[in-house]
């Protein structure tokens, strides 16, 4: 364990400015002070509101799907409407919620503070990312709601070329194109910031693991997203000009589109999960009040996942009839990703060992993450193995698998992160008991929703079905009950957060006992974060951080 070289920047005693009267939230007032702000914290908060609204919308569509599937036929939606609804659900969740959730919302808020700097490297670029995101959102939602896009979020050709909802495909893909630029700019900004603006003392291996994860994510965003842009441009060109690359009627190959699409969209899965893993690394160590176990392995595994993640896209096409050699190679590469993911889980458990485990809302979400992500990861094994995948491909088994990873993983980690940093972002403490109740309901509801889907899938229930065989009905109904429970839990989480703004206690500087830099400035942080660049030591050295009952906060023992 290294020792902190000298006390962190602000020399004022913790009691004196624990509850600042002047901070970034009231630094300036008025609509324009937010709309034109260059402050990464305000941009982060605006993203947070945006992604949470998107999530609520996508979640409503999910409930519509589950309610429709209560009966095996004659649900309350027509087949066509059902197809539009699952397209809306998938597209909104992927492009508007999961991809920007952690990096753009929490990443924007935290990255500069964790680095002890005033802002990201390019604040104007950061604001433009936000507006690109808003533009993409408007285009995308207009396309989806006005015209009735029904291609699924994957836009597979030739369906997307010949569907009569042609205008919708063009508008939605243009929306995706714009959203892609937002993602690229954010990634670029973070890479430059982390490379050039680390404070004295923060070597690469003294960086908080959240930053490692965001850094790995940013690399994927910058390298993979352009391919998505190319893909949707080619799709538009095919649709408008008939260039004959994807359309079999013009001698194109529809499977080529899948290769293009998944060359982005599989790495995008790691854009979704890596930052969530970063959050969990922070949460586990802070709430166990113990340094992270195997810091270097976690850091390296983030990078390994980012690199291997580029090489496995072919497993989305195992049944498409590609050459045997290709399938076998992609299967082998797919398994390489499982190892770094497993290492992380073991390390998080190792972090708990001999720690001092505080059970509170963020920690419960983190523990739920480990449980759910482990299931999500393990059920990837029969999908990565070729012969078993022939049975599971495009069934509910896959649906359950990726919901365990994306929702049980990323969403639950995101919620844990929001609860963890909420006092820092808003200056208010939430009702921890109610928060824990929300975590428990989410956990139960989630498992009740998606565990039955594994069974459904292995019994042969295909995905994207508006009607199904009667023998699947009991499990579908169980899943629907689970989804309503899950919805209630998530709603409670939202209520807990919003209530804190009304009647929450003022948050102290360091309510959980974190050792990274964001806990060294006030809650909420001042406009400039730090008056002078702080010097930092080990981000996971908790030996001199103790709870001080007089200020109701953890303080650094000097």
């Amino acid at each position: 364990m290294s020792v902190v070289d000298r006390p962190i920047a602000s020399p004022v005693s913790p009691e004196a400015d624990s509850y600042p009267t002047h901070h970034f939230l009231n630094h300036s007032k008025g609509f324009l002070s937010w709309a034109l702000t260059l402050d990464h914290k305000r941009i982060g908060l605006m993203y947070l509101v945006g992604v949470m609204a998107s999530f609520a919308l996508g979640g409503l569509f999910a409930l519509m799907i589950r309610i429709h599937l209560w009966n095996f036929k004659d649900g309350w939606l027509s087949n066509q409407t059902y197809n539009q609804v699952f397209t809306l659900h998938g597209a909104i969740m992927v492009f508007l919620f999961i991809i920007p959730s952690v990096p753009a919302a929490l990443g924007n808020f935290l990255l500069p503070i964790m680095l002890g700097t005033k802002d990201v490297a390019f604040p104007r670029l950061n604001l433009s990312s936000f507006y690109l995101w808003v533009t993409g959102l408007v285009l995308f939602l207009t396309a989806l709601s006005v015209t009735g896009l029904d291609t699924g979020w994957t836009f597979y050709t030739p369906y997307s070329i010949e569907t009569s909802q042609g205008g919708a495909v063009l508008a939605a893909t243009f929306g995706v194109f714009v959203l892609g630029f937002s993602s690229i700019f954010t990634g670029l900004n973070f890479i430059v910031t982390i490379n050039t603006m680390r404070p004295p003392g923060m070597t690469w291996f003294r960086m908080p693991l959240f930053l490692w994860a965001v850094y790995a994510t940013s690399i994927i965003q910058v390298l993979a997203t352009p391919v998505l842009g190319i893909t949707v441009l080619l799709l538009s060109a095919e649709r408008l000009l008939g260039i004959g690359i994807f359309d079999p009627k013009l001698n194109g190959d529809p499977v080529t589109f899948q290769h293009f699409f998944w060359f982005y969209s599989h790495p995008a899965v790691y854009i979704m999960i890596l930052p969530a893993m970063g959050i969990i690394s922070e949460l586990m160590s802070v709430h166990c009040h113990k340094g992270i176990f195997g810091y270097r392995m976690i850091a390296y595994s983030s990078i390994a996942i980012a690199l291997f993640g580029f090489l496995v896209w072919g497993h989305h096409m195992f049944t498409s009839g590609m050459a045997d050699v290709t399938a076998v190679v992609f299967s082998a590469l797919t398994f390489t990703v499982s190892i770094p993911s497993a290492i992380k889980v073991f390390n998080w458990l190792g972090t708990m060992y001999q720690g001092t485990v505080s059970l509170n809302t963020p920690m419960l979400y983190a523990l739920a993450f480990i449980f759910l992500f482990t299931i999500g990861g393990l059920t990837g094994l029969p999908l990565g193995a070729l012969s078993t995948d022939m049975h599971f491909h495009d069934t509910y088994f896959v649906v359950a698998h990726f919901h365990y990873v994306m929702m049980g993983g990323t969403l639950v980690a995101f919620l844990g992160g929001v609860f963890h940093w909420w006092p820092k972002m808003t200056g208010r403490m939430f009702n921890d008991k109610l928060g824990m109740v929300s975590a428990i309901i989410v956990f139960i509801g989630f498992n009740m929703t998606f565990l039955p889907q594994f069974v459904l899938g292995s019994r042969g229930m295909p995905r994207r079905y508006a009607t199904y065989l009667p023998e699947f009905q009991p499990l579908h109904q169980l899943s629907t009950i689970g989804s309503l429970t899950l919805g209630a839990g998530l709603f409670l989480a939202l209520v807990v957060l919003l209530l804190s703004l009304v009647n929450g206690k003022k948050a102290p500087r360091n309510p959980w006992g974190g050792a990274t830099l964001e806990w060294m400035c006030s809650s909420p942080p001042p406009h400039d974060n730090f008056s002078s660049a702080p010097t930092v030591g080990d981000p996971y050295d908790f030996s001199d951080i103790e709870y001080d009952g007089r200020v109701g906060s953890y303080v650094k023992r000097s």
Partner: protein
Amino acid sequence: MNFILADKVQPYAWFPDGASSFVPQVDFLFTVIMWICVLFFVPIVIAMGYFMWAFRERPGYRGSPEALHNNLIEITWTVVPTIIVVWIFWEGAMGYLDMSRIPKGTIDVNVTAKKWQWAFKYDNGGEHEVAAVEGSVVKELPILVLPVDRDIKMIMRSDDVLHSFYIPAFRAKRDVVPGRYNYLWFHTTKEGTYDLFCTEYCGDNHSQMLAKVKVVSEAEYQKALAKAIQEPEDPLERGKLLYKRQGCSTCHNAGAEGASGPGPSYNGSWGKKVALENGSEVDFDENYVRESILNPQAKARKGYGKASPMNSYAGKLKDEQIDALITFIKSLENTAAAGK
């Protein structure tokens, strides 16, 4: 595991009872993977629960921050999973290669997938039967009849978009891609009737693109083959058969109630003027029906401009077959009498 998961509907927990030669390998691998998952998952959860309890924050207890790194443990939990996944990969890849190596001397079936029906053509040129099925969303489904204990090869193409041919009981799946032939083979091992699904999203009635596979004895198979090449002499009967066999019935209703599917109903239109999407009207007569079969988008009915486009049947139907279909549609003039 069966004890917990099998419910009152199905006697099995995970996989449906198998009926092809792929079943042993796939089921074996899945079972092993399941147990590997259990062997990882259960200790992880137990450790998590135990650590939550044993190291919980409480007065007078302070954890020790020493355990931060242990080379032996870290190497172990990297190497052991690596060995395990290498084995899973190997087993999966070998099984897959067996699945994709098509043996000689197979019985070939031509499969055509289109929105939203499977069409099967046997190697004697006969086509599949459509029959009523119990307990399905769709009342009548195409029936693919296959002999038991033989190697069967599916030669599959698509008329329109991507589809995927999936028989859970055979553990067999392959996408059907327009613009090329995709192959799938299996060896049938057990007589019975099995579900066939489309598992690649293909539009409005994707979930109703179903069929049944009937695996029968060699003798029954030969009988079915002989029946498959026949089309009735009587034009009306022939039209009725084609209406189902060619998949018209998946979109166009011909029932008495006149309800519409993804395409306009045939019911009660004959001889009348019908409104078109472009605002004009057209006589619903032989020429209109013929044109609509060969060039479906030429005169779209009002309200169907945004419907999923129908494929052209040019080159797929003979003139006499079109005549038979016209006879059938004509018979729906006085609607109530015409059953579906």
